[in-house]
């Protein structure tokens, strides 16, 4: 008997993950990986936050710690603290009891459960709008969750490397009422271009005007500016407007807990009374997917969020990590100006977060990989975390050669 799956076609490899595999296989000692989506220290090593290690040690030393199942909606102390973290402890939505928060499998899981909830309990034909430049997996999660393929709103102005707010608003002004609009809370991935506060208010305006439902993806709270409050400003401003909205959180980057899959989904309702029903259906969605979320990472996060001293220590780590990223931005820009690379490189320092859209074309990206063994995704996105003092000039020189040798195509 042969397998029923004998004619299953091979799926195309994931672009970003394929890049990592290529990088690993490259024997050239000069190679630099600017495709990496994880923080690296100034010695180019992965980083586990000392406060996280300390909590793990405590858990391992605790004879009463067990591996018992969490409830379907996860560790309650974690969920409550997570909601307070993004919405603010004094959030009117929390005071009114209009927030339902469940633990999720990092940001991806929060998005998936949130979209599945919309598909199953609001409408399976709900339109979802994502920024034209967005994390590639967004476009996979949305149809996988049972919604139509995502539509786009214009986002980046490629000539400035900043948000094209007029085009953004124009596009959202055409969205039907009840459509979901996916917004990156801060540190837009892949461009690094965030709306200014004034621009956020314009976005809020069109969302209210068109009765859209925002779904905030927060993968970098605290990691972007170094301040948890600043990085939550967009979300809190929208919540203060009293809207129906969904909020996804990831602790992969800001607590460095990538592989532990720690995240949360909050459903914020504009009126109270729906929380029990919403929670029951989120739990049902989760139950049929994986029953209950993994315990370890949530225990660590809950301990940090729930203890003043550990929390303060974590805030210090966020300042350090974001400062290293900003330092690399400053140095890369300086290096590009020093070697007189054609173009305006202000965007390197005006963009924020782990990623920067260099404006390099796919042909230039290929050139840099083949000649200089500098790896980045084909859209010209670089991860600032992949740079160190030792490599920044090398990368700048490679970029100069690419810009001068390879005529912009794409």
């Amino acid at each position: 008997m042969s397998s029923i799956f004998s004619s299953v076609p091979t799926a195309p490899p994931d672009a970003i993950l394929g890049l990592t595999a290529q990088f690993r296989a490259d024997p050239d000692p000069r190679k630099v990986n600017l495709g990496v989506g994880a923080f690296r220290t100034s010695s180019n090593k992965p980083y586990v936050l000392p406060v996280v290690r300390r909590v793990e040690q405590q858990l391992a030393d605790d004879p009463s710690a067990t591996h018992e199942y969490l409830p379907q909606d996860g560790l309650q102390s974690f969920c409550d603290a997570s909601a307070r973290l993004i919405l603010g402890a004094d959030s009117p939505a929390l005071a009114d009891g209009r927030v339902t928060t469940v633990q999720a499998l990092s940001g991806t899981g929060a998005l998936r459960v949130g979209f599945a909830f919309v598909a199953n309990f609001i409408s399976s034909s709900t339109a979802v709008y994502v920024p034209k430049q967005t994390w590639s997996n967004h476009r996979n999660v949305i149809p996988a969750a049972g919604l139509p393929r995502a539509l786009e709103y214009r986002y980046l102005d490629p000539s400035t490397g900043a948000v094209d707010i007029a085009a953004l608003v124009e596009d959202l002004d055409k969205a039907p009422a009840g459509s979901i609009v996916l917004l990156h809370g801060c540190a837009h991935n892949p461009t690094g271009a965030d709306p200014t506060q004034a621009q956020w208010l314009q976005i809020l305006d069109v969302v209210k005007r068109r009765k859209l439902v925002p779904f905030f993806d927060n993968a970098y709270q605290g990691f972007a500016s170094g301040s948890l409050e600043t990085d939550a400003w967009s979300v809190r401003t929208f919540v203060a407007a009293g809207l129906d909205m969904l909020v996804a959180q990831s602790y992969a980057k800001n607590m460095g807990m990538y592989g532990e899959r720690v995240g949360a989904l909050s459903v914020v309702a504009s009126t109270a009374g729906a929380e029990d029903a919403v929670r029951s259906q989120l739990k049902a969605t989760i139950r049929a997917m994986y029953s209950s979320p993994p315990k370890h990472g949530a225990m660590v996060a809950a301990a940090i969020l729930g203890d003043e001293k550990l929390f303060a220590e974590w805030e210090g780590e966020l300042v350090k990590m974001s400062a290293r990223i900003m330092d690399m931005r400053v140095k890369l820009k300086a290096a590009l100006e020093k070697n007189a690379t054609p173009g305006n490189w202000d965007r390197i320092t005006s963009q924020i977060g782990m990623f920067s859209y260099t404006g390099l074309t796919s042909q230039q990206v290929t050139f840099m990989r083949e000649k200089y063994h500098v790896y980045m995704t084909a859209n010209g996105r670089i991860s600032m975390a992949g740079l160190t003092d030792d490599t920044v000039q090398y990368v700048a020189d490679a970029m100069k050669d690419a810009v001068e040798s390879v005529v912009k195509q794409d």
Partner: protein
Amino acid sequence: MFRQTLFRHLSRPLPRLLSTQPSAAFAPAVPTSRFAGVPKGPEDAILGVTVAFNADPNPNKINLGVGAYRDDVGLPFVLSPVREAERRIVHAQHHMEYLPVAGSRTFVDKAIRLAYGEHNHHVKTGQVASIQTLSGTGACRMAGVLIQRFLPALDGGPRDESPLVLLPNPSWANHAAIFRDSGCAVGQYKYYDPATKNLDFEGCVSSLEDAPDGSVVLLHACAHNPTGVDPTPEQWAKLSAVLKEKRHQPLFDMAYQGFTSGDMEVDAASVRRFVDDGHRIVLAQSFSKNFGLYGQRVGCLSVLTDSQEEALAIDSQLKIIARPMYSNPPIAGVRIVEEVLSDPELERQWRAEMKGMAERIISMRTMLKGYLEELGSAQNWDHITNQNGMFCFSGISKEQVAKLRDEHSVYLTENGRISMAGVTSQNVGYLADAVHKVTK
């Protein structure tokens, strides 16, 4: 309020609810949330049992709804090699980087060797597609989606309707939801006979023979949940032949390997029988019970194929399913399993303590049955010791279950399912007495 009344009638969740707007005549003055019309889902039966148990002040109370192993004083049990592995892991100061989408290769290789045996030809020649999953549930969900997307019609061409997954009647309550949410159609085959409290083998065989050719048949590899009733080796052989003849696709759910008899090889016998008979099985594995890692969500899905190319193609499709669900699986639990299985002494301890858990369950079964017989019960309690694994389908009626709860503070689900993990040498006498009183 109008809206609350309307939606209280919707006691079951409605898939694809298209409109939640009330009719214009009752439109409220104040705009309401788009989430206001979400219907409340059904209560979780098992949770209800636990909530009631927790609220009961009776010091003699017993919780027979618990789905995790408990030791002889009723406490959760962390295996000592697991504790030691955790200490070593923390000491080693590993990074917390993302696992690959398919999870830890080391873990998955160990998992499939445990299931199929060290000498399995498909495993040794790279013909098993596999992926780390969020425990058994995650493995079943991945299987469901894979089946929904790629199960061809029997002639090899595309299907014109959803694939049919047949579950034993009864099955774990969550199976139906998992496969429905995967986009499969769900049906049943006869399994448990309440009259004999045993397998209705003839009914089972005939319902599988009556099912459309090429159906997906979910089989509990051992320790059937919730009945504890497993086919004998001879019956497994016959089922294998029936599935072959009907060209049904076997999908094994193995949540209790090692936990049932105490021996990993013995408990995998049904799976290996089917593999030896040539079935290209799909296998969902959980490490929740046999490693006691419940909340860390450790599991594996594997698919037997005929070539490395095919295995790689299916691997690639499994990754496509995983990425938009959770991107990559959690690392903490699999690190523990790897640590234990990479040290012969820790592995030895694991097997010994796993056996200890299985033996405690078996001894509680023996004691419970023994006490009931001593008390002079007129009922036949053979099923208590004939049934396997954590659960016993006691045959206690709904009314008797209520009496057990109300008069004796003994808590179990309405269907009469007893979790033997909740039975200890301290409480088994009291339990037997209570059961005898409500059933005589």
